[in-house]
């Protein structure tokens, strides 16, 4: 077997996304579109967190915009964003050669393994909010974490079987690496040789500024607290009605509403813990009910 070879570098941020999509489409993944709700991580898309439960086989890949209000930096930090993209892949059950498939996806976007140092460093992933954990690694490329690679073991507090392999690529970080750019806003969003070349900043900088101001200065905390309670009630009611999918949606809404409240620093650590526990109960409850329904249908 000869040494692995890298492909030509993509030309732009969108080219990198398209390359990953094509790569995983070739591997038999359904290419889904982003979930139409505010989430803090691509894992929370029902296509991952809920589909990891139950006995059915599943393969999907998608881009998921992620919102983390606390991470917003008014567009002033070259590495941190309140809104960014993750590329998410789930294969259930994980194929035996998933590590190879993953590495080839890096070669496909132009990372040359003969000059770059790719490493699998222990990192056990957990998301207590959805009662999920798994074992795997952070994947490092020259010391930079470019992906999270996880074999799910539990979701919603339940053992999963078969086991899913989950890959999360931090797209902006990966792109900055591939293009050798130190500032996220300088990334070429489309082909820099096209008629209207656009940078990541052209597309998102003003959004980051205004959203940061909203997250830290203008959000109405009292209103958000009411919203949180409403979402919580709706989610509980839906679960009581045996509808875990919309119940899960409202758990996500409650979660994002909490993240907005938290960004304002408006709650004490004790209150904070209580909010987190409430979101966890909603998400786990919906996930467990979904698992029960999936298991029954198998």
């Amino acid at each position, binding site marked *: *077997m000869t*040494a*692995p070879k890298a492909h030509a570098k993509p030309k732009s941020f969108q080219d990198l996304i398209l390359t990953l999509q094509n790569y995983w489409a070739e591997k038999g993944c359904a290419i889904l579109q982003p979930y139409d709700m505010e989430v803090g991580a691509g894992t929370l898309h029902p296509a991952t967190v809920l589909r990891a439960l139950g006995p059915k086989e599943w393969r999907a890949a998608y881009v998921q915009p992620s919102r983390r209000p606390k991470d917003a930096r008014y567009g002033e*930090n*070259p*590495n941190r964003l309140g809104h960014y993209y993750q590329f998410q892949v789930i294969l259930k*059950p*994980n*194929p*035996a050669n998933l*590590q190879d498939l993953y*590495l080839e996806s890096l070669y496909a976007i132009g990372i040359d*393994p*003969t*000059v*770059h*140092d*790719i*490493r*699998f*460093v*222990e990192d*056990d992933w957990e998301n207590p909010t959805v009662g999920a954990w*798994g*074992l*795997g*690694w952070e994947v490092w*490329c*020259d*010391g*930079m974490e470019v992906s999270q690679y996880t*074999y799910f*073991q539990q979701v919603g507090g339940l053992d999963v*079987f*078969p*086991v899913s*392999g989950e890959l999360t690529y931090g797209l902006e970080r990966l792109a900055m*690496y591939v293009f050798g750019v*130190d500032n996220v806003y300088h990334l070429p969003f489309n082909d820099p040789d096209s008629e209207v070349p656009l940078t990541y900043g052209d597309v998102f900088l003003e959004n980051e500024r205004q959203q940061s101001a909203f997250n830290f200065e203008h959000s109405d905390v009292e209103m958000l607290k009411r919203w949180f309670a409403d979402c919580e009630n709706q989610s509980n009611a839906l679960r009581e009605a045996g509808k875990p999918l919309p119940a899960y949606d409202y758990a996500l809404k409650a979660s994002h509403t909490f993240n907005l409240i938290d960004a304002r620093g408006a709650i*004490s*650590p*004790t209150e904070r813990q209580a909010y987190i526990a409430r979101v966890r109960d909603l998400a786990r409850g919906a996930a467990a009910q979904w698992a029960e329904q999936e298991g029954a249908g198998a």
Partner: protein
Amino acid sequence: MADLILELFSEEIPARMQAKAEQDLGAALEKALGEAGLSWASLETASGPRRLTVFVDDLSERSADVKEERKGPKVGAPDKAVEGFLRGAGLSDINQAEVRSDPKKGDFYVAVIETPGRDATDIIAEAVPAIIRGFHWPKSMRWGTGELRWVRPLQRIVCVLDGKIVPFEVDGVASGNETEGHRVHGRGPYKVLDRQDYEESLSGAGHVKLTRDARREVILSGIEKVCTDAGLEWIEDKGLLEEVVGLAEWPVVVLGDMDPAFLSLPPEVIQLSMRTHQKYFAVNDKKTGKLAPNFIVVANIEATDGGKKLAEGNSRVLSARLDDGRFFWEKDKATPLEDMAAKLSTIAFKAELGSLGDKVERVAALARELAPKVGADPDLAERAARLAKADLVSEMVGEFPELQGVMGRYYALEEGEPEAVADAIRDHYKPQGPSDSVPTDPVGIAVALADKLDTLVGFWAIDEKPTGSKDPFALRRAALGVVRIVLENEVRLKLHSNLEVSSDLLSFFADRLKQVLRDQGQRHDLIDAVFALGEDDLVLITRRVEALGAFLDTEDGANLLAGYKRAANILKAEEKKGDLPSDLSVDDALIAKGPAEEQALGKALADVEAAIEGPLAAEDFTGAMAELAKLRAPVDAFFEAVMVNDDDAAVRANRLALLTKIRATLHCVADFSRIDG
């Protein structure tokens, strides 16, 4: 004789687990082969990021046949006895047993049970799957549709005996004779015939350094080379070294550089950023002895460009990390420590003991109270205590909890707090372990003691004490910290009478003190003997124990102890017979009528009683012991010549009173009844 190679090849094993797993696998195989009756010349192990390997050399090819004879009943014994014998020996008919003759007993049955030896191949094929299934990892997982648990998916099993595959299967993974090398430099697969072949394939074309030692050696010599070439000095970090030994199959040491502007950050921040997030080694400039704007990374490839790109990449990641660090540093500096301290009231310390803010209030008051006793300025001690925990809400400590105290000191200095206050903020957590030093500046001592005492008194008040091996709040460490600070700085505190330390908590301190004194070679019975006096000043206890130990090592001391024991035993025996007279005071007039030895003892006791007062008051225990030594001769002479149980009741009572006085005098120094020997 044959050689065995076993290799368990998996996806990347966490670095921290490799060494232990290597050891466990070797031990498990050794046990299984030994129990099956095989022997071998040597068993060696190796481990790395993706594999655990065991080599067994000169393994016997078969276990020996085992012949066992079992004696049975006499010929003609009752049916029941014969049946029982057949069942026990696994025979179906008595004709299968032999008949032997004994001149005394006559004819009897003997069952000869022969267990044939087994081929090593069969033994291994049975043992290895069982070892794999029962292997203990700190954390294990399932994958795909299998049920097997391993640390990460198990990809291959190489099991070759004398050039041939030992066939077996574990949950879909079949044993074979092919291994894999480095993913980029020589993946293989490589056929494995014997150990030499295996080692040559992997360390050659396969680009895998098989053993931890081999990788450590490459890394250390690589570090030395890049440092020498660049005029740098490696800041040794053994923990990190052991970790990176498990992170690369083909380690290559690369020197990277960073923007020197980052050196304006506290060196602790830079080093921790390198270590925790990036697993880089920090280096000093050889000339200045200060942190250099460089780092050492151990890569897993021999890059075709000599490592230029990967050094640049790593440097960029470090810059991003340090940018974050600078952001936290600047943001924290813009927030007064007092404002940070105010936030502590929203953080729970322990539900029943209030918030961290409440704790800080208590510690501040206690530090103020302790200040004069340790020679600290009360205002400075209180100030330091009020600011000591403030950095817990800083951005930097949120990111690097290990920097608690260290950052507080920097922020205090930035705000122009006195150096003693700043240092006390850093040092009040000390000592953090047996190898850590204790604070030595008076302000630091006051705050460190106040913080730990408050925690201990508080947890004792709500009855949350450590039990057995459970000590979730590290109370033993806190108490040991108090003991060490007090002893090493000679801090004079009456824990029980001046501070609110309950007698139960005092005995908890006593146990820690015993630990310290024992480590210094003091006898624990001496510690008990001194504790029994009710002393609550740890420094005095220690001095007494030391003086006592030295005294008992002298001939006078040892003999006096024997005399004491004799006196105490007589008193005990008399007490058993009936109550001793209630007013056992020595009647000098009666003594004067007694033998010379009795008179001498009476005088010596009176003299010594008066003479030890001075040294005891001056805490001169060696001096007090020297006075006690004067009792030895009169006590010995007394027991030699005088009969305590005189027929005259008054004389007897008076002599018992003398013995009581011996006991009481010695108890001024320690409770000798608790001393062994």
